[in-house]
């Protein structure tokens, strides 16, 4: 049986779809333009702005920095976040309820405030060099994702399998690695990807922490845009977008995307 949909509902759905995908179409369109200005629809087709983006060494360098920060920052954050999530799930009864909320603070505090306070403490306070400051900042920024997403898969976890492992002669620290971690693999990967993307696209924290000679790709984009309003920005954005889509596609292939929404 076919259900009859109200025309207004269809129109509304189409509008939402346009608003969601429209900017992407415009960005891709303008990145392919051959003119000197960021405009849509594009005047003529060319890949020169992609070439230009890769020619500018600042973009190449900052992309390297961004990737390094996303990988190392997330890894650092996982080292802290996964054990924390484990402890909070395992000792839910013994630990105070507010403890979990502490780890979400970085997303509750306005990012601009977080960025400012990190700069004030570690960059100016302790005079930590730019790159380590950025690393700490990004690790803090993505910590909520690491703790929460890992925590979600641990909350429904049956810890009796840990006890089973121990009863079979496996010390507890070892059981964590050979029994707990393999069974929350999906949660770990999900946490890593969310954190990775958040770090890669971050502006507000990096804005405060970047310094002479060290910048991230989004900050470099901002700086570039202030001087040149050309389609290079669009082409760099498209590259970033496709990296994100690529990562998601790999995840979809291996695990299915549903675990991100679970």
């Amino acid at each position, binding site marked *: 049986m076919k259900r009859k949909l109200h025309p207004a509902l269809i129109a509304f759905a189409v509008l939402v779809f346009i608003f969601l995908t429209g900017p992407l179409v415009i960005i891709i369109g303008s990145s392919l333009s051959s003119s000197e200005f960021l405009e849509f629809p594009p005047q003529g087709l060319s890949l020169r702005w992609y070439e230009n983006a890769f020619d500018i060494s600042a973009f190449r360098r900052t992309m390297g920095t961004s990737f390094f920060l996303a990988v190392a920052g997330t890894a650092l954050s996982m080292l802290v976040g996964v054990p924390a999530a484990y402890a909070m799930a395992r000792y839910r009864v013994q630990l105070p309820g507010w403890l979990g909320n502490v780890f979400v603070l970085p997303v509750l505090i306005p990012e601009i405030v977080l960025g400012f306070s990190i700069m004030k403490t570690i960059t100016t306070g302790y005079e930590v060099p730019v790159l380590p400051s950025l690393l700490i900042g990004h690790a803090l920024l993505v910590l909520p994702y690491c703790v929460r997403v890992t925590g979600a898969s641990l909350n429904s976890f*049956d810890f*009796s*399998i840990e*006890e*089973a*492992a*121990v*009863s*079979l*002669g*496996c*010390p*507890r620290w070892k059981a964590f690695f050979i*029994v707990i971690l*393999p*069974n929350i*693999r999906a949660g770990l990967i999900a946490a890593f990807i969310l954190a990775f993307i958040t770090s890669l696209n971050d502006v507000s924290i990096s804005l405060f922490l970047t310094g002479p000679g060290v910048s991230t790709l989004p900050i470099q984009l901002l700086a570039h845009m202030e001087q040149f309003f050309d389609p290079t920005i669009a082409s760099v954005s498209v590259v970033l977008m496709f990296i994100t889509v690529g990562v998601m596609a790999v995840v979809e292939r291996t695990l299915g995307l549903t675990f991100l929404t679970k």
Partner: protein
Amino acid sequence: MTVSLTLENITAHYGKTMVLEDLNLHVGEGELVSLLGSSGCGKTTTLRLVAGFLEPTAGHIRLGDRDLTRLPSHARDIGLVFQTYALFPHLSVKDNVAFGLKQRGIATAERNKRAMDMVERVGLSGFADRYPANLSGGQRQRVALARALVIDPPLLMFDEPLSNLDAKLRVEMRVEIRRLQQANGTTALYVTHDQEEAFSISDRVAIMNKGRIMQLDTPEVLYSRPANAFVADFVGFENVIEAVATGEDGDMILAEAGGALLKLPKSHFELPGKEFLLAARADGLTVTAAPGEGLPATLGLRTYLGRAYQYVCETQAGTLTANGPLGAPLETGANAVLIPQPEQCCVLPREAL
């Protein structure tokens, strides 16, 4: 290797709440002892203490000549079967079973051989490469059993292993558990809240309440001769009547209960004191039309049991449940007497529980 398990003066607390009070328990070599009781009675706590997941506040746990009390859990060498089975979801049936052997550093070839032998023994030959998610409840239970047995532990422990299975499978699996336990001659501690399950497979059963063992004995003794009112109620003595011995008449004890004089044969009863409790199942009190020698009662609701009629009886000793013969059903409101059947009654001490 057969050893015995001994718990000496074990006291345990959760925070400030005492959950076990001066508990003593001895499980002999090759014996299967069940801990039976409702939730919160301390039976699972006892098992977790022996497993080493909890530490007692006082007392000692010994397995053979080893003192387990402060030994870390992974060094205790105890096979455990969990209520939720606790199989490793990321390992196949074979690898689940081989897990304990791997922890003991047994070489791959021998490990696989022993694991496969055990998988076969529990009847899962065709399922060695399956993952737990693709097994039925009964099959998971068998894997859990195989995994605990394969390490050849001196002690096996079961924590409500059958409570997630349906009734038919429960009976099948408990026979299986008993068969494997006896074949290996392994000492075993079995925790359950199901009386039938405990009685059917145990050598002895400990009935627990509020962190104490109320009675530890063979199922036969528990069923027919409970030691106190709690156990009597637990094993289905519906009627507990307060009575006072008044004298003797030949080989009969004379006792006053519920406003009537009862004669109890000495051959069946050994009174714990002048004041005592007479406990009887519904079958142990026979309803007969008044007048007669017995406890006077006014009959209430009558139900049909197939083998007898059951009556709710109002007496001076309170509301009792008693059975009457099928031949002569009595009407509601009728006056009757209840006659205790000596071989189906028992006497208990009067004590505050």
